[in-house]
């Protein structure tokens, strides 16, 4: 085990962790505001990936430019889904809400299977195999860009929630639904906004993943199952928690993979998960009310 391999693996884990964080951010936002676990999150990511792939191959534009389509598109789809499918079950028992998002996921995944077939597709760009060399460590450019993009979007979203009136209203609706309604915040619209923003996040993650990954109908699960762990690890509903959790999981998974073989690499993640939850039952940065 050389230093070079260790450093490359570490860097790779950090870069992947950024993307996990972005996926987790959307989940945690939706959960924080609506108390709904969105199982369709991975399917939305998959749809964004197909949209990116389609745009890039049909029109020849750079896949990163597809962000201009997938992010607003993700927002609108999220908003629409919330209004049409989620809002009616918000007052229903939790298992009904779970079934609704799970049903959405099954529907979207199978729709993709019918439309795009099960064949994985790869988008190759001129810079797909480009690397940035830092000493002996070669960082894959698309992964690095995905990391940078994920951090940028996280920062922008955090600023929106902290600094704007709309962001504050959203947080108010999340923290105290009835109180927010009493002071005139349109809570129902805030819910749709949260779902839209969460979907836009995962759509952005999808687009950022296309240049270094492949696209297939079940691809969302690769990232989203880990993102569920990240959300709980960081603290349900906590933004900085999602970022910290994402990076921690990325690094642990990557380094774990060096020492443990194959699927066993996942053991590291869950060991970390158990240890953190034993020490802090609400997650790394979770608030007591979560």
């Amino acid at each position, binding site marked *: 085990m050389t230093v070079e*391999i260790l450093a490359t*693996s570490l860097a790779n884990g950090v870069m992947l962790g950024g993307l996990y964080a972005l996926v987790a951010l959307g989940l945690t936002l939706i959960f924080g505001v609506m108390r709904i676990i969105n199982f369709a999150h991975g399917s939305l990511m998959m749809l964004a990936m197909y949209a990116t792939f389609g745009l890039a191959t049909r029109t020849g534009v750079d896949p990163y430019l597809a962000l201009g389509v997938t992010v607003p598109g993700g927002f609108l789809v999220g908003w629409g889904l919330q209004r049409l499918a989620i809002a009616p079950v918000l007052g229903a028992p939790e298992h009904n809400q779970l079934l609704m998002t799970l049903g959405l996921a099954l529907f979207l995944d199978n729709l993709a299977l019918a439309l795009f077939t*099960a*064949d994985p597709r790869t988008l*190759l760009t001129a810079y797909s*195999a480009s690397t940035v060399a830092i000493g002996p460590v070669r960082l*894959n450019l698309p*992964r690095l860009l995905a990391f940078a993009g994920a951090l940028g979007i996280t920062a922008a979203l955090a600023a929106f929630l902290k600094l704007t009136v709309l962001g504050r209203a959203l947080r108010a609706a999340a923290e105290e639904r009835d109180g927010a309604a009493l002071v005139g915040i349109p809570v129902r619209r805030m819910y749709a906004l949260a779902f839209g923003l969460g979907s836009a996040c995962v759509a952005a993650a999808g687009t950022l993943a296309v240049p270094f990954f492949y696209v297939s109908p079940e691809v969302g699960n690769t990232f989203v199952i*880990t993102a569920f762990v990240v959300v709980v690890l960081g603290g349900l509903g906590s933004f900085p928690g999602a970022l910290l959790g994402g990076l921690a999981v990325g690094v642990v998974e990557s380094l774990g993979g060096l020492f443990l073989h*194959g699927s066993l690499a996942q053991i590291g993640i869950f060991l970390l998960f158990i240890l953190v939850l034993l020490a802090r039952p609400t997650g790394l940065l979770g608030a007591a009310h979560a």
Partner: protein
Amino acid sequence: MTSRRRFLRTVAAAAALGVPGTLRAQPREVLIGETHPLTGPLAREGNLGRQGIELAVNEINAAGGIQALGGARLRLMVLDNESKPPVAISTMERLKDAGVVAVLGPYASGLAFVTTQEAEKYRIPHVLDVAIADQITERGFKYTFRFSPTAGVGAAQTVEYLGGLVKDFQLGWKRAVLVHEDGLFGKATADTLQKLLPTIGMDVVDRIPHNAQAPSLTNEVLKIKAARADVVIPSTYYPAHSLIIRTMAEQRVDVGAVLSVYGGAGSQYRFIKDVGRLADFMLDGNHWFNPRAPRIRGVIAAFERAYQQPFAYEWLLAYQSVWVLKDALERAGAPDRERLREALARTHLTDTLMPYPIAFDDKGQNPHARVLLMQVQGGRIAVVYPPAFAEARPVVPVPPWEKRS
């Protein structure tokens, strides 16, 4: 009502003719059953198989059907087993009830285990297309016929071809690294290879299992680099295979060759279409056509015309299975399951599209079946070994990534 009317009509017709049925003309149609995964995870392969069978049946019917049965046409009854063994069982039942004389299909080993069992139970001859698991023909079944190579034969021959390459081209390769997905398929293949590789003087210096759905295979590729491998042998599914190659290119991991056995990628034009030049120089031991067979170019062209798809061995094996059945029907002389079974058991076809003659041992396996070694060269899949079938010279060791355009 309908059945009574039909009954009366039949009785009337028979009375009018006044002859026993046996003296009348042979049946004008022979009903052939087919069970393939047309939906579900194996839908792509199943549909290729269906198309291959359809093409062969159309050709046979257009050329006058089964001569020995008075030019009887083949009629297909195609059922979708949804890629699920329990459904495959019920398709066999329905085919039996419909009175098929034989069953074709079902592409995957997991499906073939149950369809062959049902075929045995109902005494229906079953000619397999692809299913490679060795055990399928090791259960002493009398109604199962597989003309294509098994998993074990494929692995042994691919390793033998690798040994041949190393010797013929004086490559001096010693270090092999096995990269396998950590499920049953990947592990079983790696176990077999680990036993076979020492027979050609190669050491397995590392075995790298991986999760087939991992979001990154960088660690695995770094381990390949650290092992200073001469040959990397991946046994994994298509998406992971593609990710390994891409990451090797990105990390500039140069090895003598990447070779697979029944690989998920190297013998697939869809892989080349997907990853382009990154697929270049990959070697794969797999089912393939005999490039020297006189009819092969015409058949491939006919398939491409009919279905607008590039060549894939999945359909070719299904196509060949129909011709095996046709040959047996000609010799059986009657659309009868027992006589057909006996004729199949005595098959000896030398005029095939495969790189081997077709005959069956007492287990129903073709002892002559073989795989070939193919290499992707400039976007084309060419047979490179053994020399008797080679279409192109193998490019080994493969050029380093830096030198590729």
